[in-house]
């Protein structure tokens, strides 16, 4: 029953986004919308190309994943397998606390501390870059990733470890070849949830990435994400206008991207379970 309800909600949300953006997509053309290189919704004639926004979102997400995934898996392994019991409890508490920090606060810290730091270390004209966004998002997604991976690693049955030890495996071999593999479905679920949080995050990104809608050539230039565009411009649009509907269309594309990511993860999980 509840399962059905959540499916209905997802369909309703999709339907709502679709209805709101349908006339826009029909008039402007979905291909022009996705592959257009310029986002000038207020100029005359307006240009609604979201390629820079899509690339901005993907670039930041990719950077954040590269930072967050290895650190998260290693932290989870350390907490679950290596740390003594009291340290383990303390670290778990700390990580759950980290997860509870509101994103705007993290964005704030990023803006005040991280952005100037990046400007100085890499000698850039501005510290508001995709790279800053990636760091901030990695920091935000790590608590989720660590906490869920740790649960998955911790619930690997003792009998697997015992079996590996009895065959002469060292602690590290046991962790790498048995524990990690047994926990893999859970770890992938953790990573997917983390990516979901990264790609959908708005506030913190808006504060540290500079919001310039250019197609970035490196990770050290300002970018604008899809989420930040919706959040920043929704207030200024006229209800029912082309611009207003184009923001819904961005939402629709974002929804499709996260949907595809989850679908891939699901297929992948099924493959390893078999």
């Amino acid at each position, binding site marked *: 029953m509840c399962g059905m309800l959540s499916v209905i909600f997802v369909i309703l949300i999709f339907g709502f986004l679709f209805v709101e953006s349908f006339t826009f997509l029909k008039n402007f053309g979905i291909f022009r919308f996705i592959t257009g290189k310029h986002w000038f919704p207020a100029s005359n004639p307006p240009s609604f190309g979201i390629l820079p926004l899509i690339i901005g979102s993907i670039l930041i997400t990719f950077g954040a994943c590269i930072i967050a995934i290895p650190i998260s898996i290693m932290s989870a392994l350390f907490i679950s397998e290596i740390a003594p019991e009291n340290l383990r409890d303390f670290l778990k508490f700390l990580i759950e606390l980290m997860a509870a920090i509101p994103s705007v606060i993290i964005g704030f810290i990023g803006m005040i501390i991280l952005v100037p730091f990046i400007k100085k270390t890499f000698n850039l004209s501005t510290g508001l870059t995709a790279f800053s966004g990636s760091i901030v998002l990695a920091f935000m997604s790590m608590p989720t990733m660590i906490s869920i991976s740790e649960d998955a690693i911790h619930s690997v*049955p003792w*009998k*697997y470890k*015992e*079996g*590996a*030890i*009895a*065959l*002469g*495996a*060292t602690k590290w*071999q046991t962790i790498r*070849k*048995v524990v990690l*593999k*047994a926990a893999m479905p859970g770890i992938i679920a953790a990573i997917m949830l983390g990516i979901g949080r990264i790609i959908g995050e708005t506030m913190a990104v808006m504060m540290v990435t500079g919001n310039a809608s250019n197609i970035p050539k490196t990770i050290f230039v300002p970018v604008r994400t899809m989420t930040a565009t919706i959040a920043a411009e929704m207030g200024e649009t006229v209800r029912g206008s082309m611009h207003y509907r184009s923001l819904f269309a961005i939402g629709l594309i974002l929804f499709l991207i996260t949907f595809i990511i989850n679908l891939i993860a699901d297929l992948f999980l099924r493959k390893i*379970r*078999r």
Partner: protein
Amino acid sequence: MFNLIIKNFSLYYYNFCALKNINLKIKEKNITAMIGPSGCGKSTLLRSINRINDTIKGVFTKGNINVLGKNIYNTKIDVEALRRNVGMVFQRPNPFPLSIYENISFGLNINNKNSINIKMAVKESLKDVLLWDDVKNKLNRNALNLTLEQQQRLCIARAIIMKPNIILFDEPCSSLDPIATQRIEELILTLKKEYTVIIVTHNMQQAARISCDTAFMLQGKLIEFNKTEKIFTNPMEKETENYITGRFG
């Protein structure tokens, strides 16, 4: 002749003395059974022989266990090498959640034994446990899809691929049905030709069926150790007689 000699061996779990001064000499290429009521320490003793008790907090030991003439409780011993030489099969089949092939080759792979043809070795050991015909076409399938009996055979194959000297069985049939139990017992009997087998069992008939020597333990002490037929027909100790005639346990 004896490749396992246990000398004045005691084991403590925090303050509790779980094994009291055990002395035992076990013959090579022979099946030795350990029987006794639950909690008598038979599994603990078995688990001391490959030092897998080391993984339990609060355990410390006194005395020696000599495997092939070396005291395995010497601090300088290579514990991983010991465990490669002393295989173990557990109470509940515990294949890793990996493919059948990865399960069997696990021990060789972590060792980087490049000189050995792993594919051949996997085939050989699966044949030895009479599992090859059942699984030869699905070596890449997850081992958890096998039946419990097949899983236990796989665990035995996983142990014998290492060519150990001794194989320890910790109640290997307790989660199997009678027919599967019989077939695993037949398999264990064939292992005697090449390996020293020590089996812990709560099933006295099983001990009588497959073992040559039997050790009877009670409350952490070794009460009696003798030829199996002696233990079951003409025990020396009163406690042994009481146990095998079913007065307690």
